[in-house]
């Protein structure tokens, strides 16, 4: 999605929000569910999807994905788009399972090369598993804001703090990175605009001159992002940030979150056992 804001910069900013994942704003039950529950259940379903071998388990998995997609208003089209980057891997893994080169194929194609029905089943299963995982992952990413995701991960990782891992600092660094993604893209657009306004043409000349022109964007971009980072550090200091002693903002889970977590875990165990 491209959106524009006439912000205080006074420059039209065309920012691509695709960089921030696939979050779709909404208020479905899945949006309201605690992000930690969603992350834990995503992990559990990943395990279950690989344990499930029997047809009833597969049916359970597909049914649960269908319910999740319906509840979170994520369309099948979105899942298909999510699968696109993995398409080559999917096709290859299907072929690797299905195609038999050394004879013994029950479906002959060309000479020694054929396909085995057992292989086709295995290949279909492999593709179905990955498609299902992409589906579940999309349910989580399209109903959870990146900031909530950071909070959830840092809250789940809190026990690591006892091992000396600076969880709070890592969480702050991640959330600042989220703040800098739109900043960097705005800054890039601004510099391009300013240079175009003074006659720079980025689409003319030899590859060498074009490259040189790109460099003339990236140098000031990096300089200005460092400047912004300094300003940000000052602004954080002005608001008493010191790295430790911060209140952890993610709240206790509600009863409904606990029940969904328990129900979900029981369900995944069930899938593994049938």
């Amino acid at each position, binding site marked *: *999605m*491209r*959106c*524009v*804001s*006439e*912000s*205080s*910069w*006074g*420059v*039209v900013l*065309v*920012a691509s929000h695709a960089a921030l994942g696939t979050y779709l*704003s909404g208020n479905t039950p899945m949006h309201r569910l605690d992000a930690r529950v969603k992350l834990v259940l995503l992990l559990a379903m990943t395990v279950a999807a690989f344990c499930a071998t029997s047809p009833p388990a597969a049916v359970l998995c597909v049914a649960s994905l269908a319910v999740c997609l319906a509840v979170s208003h994520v369309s099948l089209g979105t899942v298909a788009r999510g699968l696109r980057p993995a398409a080559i891997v999917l096709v290859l893994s299907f072929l690797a399972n299905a195609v038999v080169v050394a004879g013994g194929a029950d479906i002959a194609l060309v000479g020694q090369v054929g396909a085995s029905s057992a292989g086709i089943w295995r290949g279909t299963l492999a593709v179905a598993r990955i498609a299902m995982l992409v589906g579940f992952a999309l349910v989580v990413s399209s109903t959870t*804001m*990146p*900031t909530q995701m950071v909070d959830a991960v840092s809250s789940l990782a809190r026990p690591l703090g006892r091992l000396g891992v600076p969880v709070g600092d890592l969480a702050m660094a991640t*959330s*600042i990175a*989220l*703040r800098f993604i*739109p*900043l960097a893209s*705005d800054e890039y657009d*601004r*510099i391009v*605009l*300013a*240079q*175009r*306004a*003074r*006659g*720079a*043409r980025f689409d003319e000349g030899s590859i060498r001159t074009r490259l040189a022109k790109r460099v*003339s964007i990236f*140098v*000031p971009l990096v*300089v*200005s992002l460092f*400047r*912004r980072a300094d*300003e*940000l550090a*000052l*602004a*954080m*200091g*002005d*608001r*008493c*940030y*010191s790295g430790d*002693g*911060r*209140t*952890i*903002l993610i*709240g206790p889970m509600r009863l409904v979150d606990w029940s969904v977590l328990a129900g979900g875990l029981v369900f995944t165990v069930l899938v593994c056992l049938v």
Partner: protein
Amino acid sequence: MLEIKNVRFAYAASDGLALDDVSVVVRPGERIAVFGVNGSGKSTLARIANGSAKPISGEVWADGERGVDLVRAVGYVRQDPTCQLVSARVFDEVCFGPANLGLERREVVARANEALARCHAEHLADKGTAELSGGQQQLIAIAGVIAMRPRYLVLDEVTSHLDPRAGEEVAILTQSLVDEGVGVLEMVHDVCSALGATRVMVLKGGRVAWEGAPTDFLGSARALDVSGLDVDPCARAICAAVRAGANSEDCGDPGSLAAFALAHGIDRDVLGMLGQRSEADASPSHHELALEAATVSYGGVRALDAVTLASLKTVTLVAGLSGSGKTTAACALAGVIDPDDGAALLDGVPVRPGCVGLAFQRPETQLFADTVADDIAFGPRNIGLGEAAVVAAVTRAAHEMGLGDDLLGRSPFSLSGGQRRRVELAGLIALGYGAYVLDEPSAGLDSFGRNRLRAFVRRLARGGASVVVVTHAVGEWLSVADHVVFLRDGRVASSCDAGDAWASSAPYEAAGLPVPYEVRVRELLGGGACG
């Protein structure tokens, strides 16, 4: 009580003192307005007051606390909101400060909700901070600070990047905080900010040049002179009234100022102080810029909807609130945005990027080279001038903008805001365009810088160029403009000769813009088109 005692400060040992023996006291429930030209030390004083800059000598105390504890007692909001937002989501932004204080989670959330409600910004809680308008960002920055419940607040020209309506909202919010007992130290440049302040202080060259009550400030020629406001028509008019015995309330709004002026027979004086319009003669060979039925959309949102700005000659103002499509119109006129429909034309020929000089609201945006000289040379080099011609163009442009040779070798980022603006404009005139589009060129400049800028625009127009000034501060540009176009929600709300907007509220009301102070006073005092 926030006490700054005999503070001296320098940014580097080799530099001169940025503050020299400055003392201020802010008590709870007081608002101290600090005036001063660009580079007088206002921002430095703000940094000293919240403890983020350490003075060389002198002390800063807040209710018995000092040093690192100051930052808890003294909240600080800067001029530019984009530099101070640290979170990607609004609610997290407002929680950031209280969470750093290590409060209970429930308390943090309660304070954040309360602060958002105070700023009338509850509806923004779940928005991304990057998608807000400048005015909204500044409100959120203030909410983020008041959620920490500071006893004192330092505001560094917080309204200078905002449109008049957002500026009014911030002023009302500030006053309500003062009424609740927060002590406010406010760095300002608008004369109206002095009205209602507890005390006024003027900095000049890092020293306290004047200090006293608001009415004394407005009545004192010397105070006005050292604050650089003696060249500001509004300030001069208010002064004339104060000298005739008006108090702060009489000057607070145009209605009461006009009533006072009429009652005391000084209406001619006041009108005289508000200045005259100078109309430029369009030379026969004047370049002509136009936008024809231009439509620009971003992801389904129409920023411009079939906007036609016909035959723009000499100086045209394009006015409107934030989000009215002004900046999009500027970019389309300069050819850096291709309209989805319609076209921008210079002398009847479609505008290509680089054919029209475009200056952005923030000069930093435009500056990217290592040295001032290289930056000014960027345009001439792009059009393929030889090195000798480039040097000649740079020298001529630097001279025209009053940039000395000592500045040419420096980094543009080491300069003050006013100097950067001049470097930016030098970079444009080095190319000698037939038409210029300047987007909010006076933002962040002091009265002196503004005057100089207006004179520069006038000179460009006399030289045959057509100049479009995109601004929300219509009042201060009317004296040099010939034509005004008001935009609202991506459409032309109205357009008129600058003379018709000089002393009449109607065009502003039609565009949903607050009527500029001086325009309303002129209208009430019957000051016609030419004073």
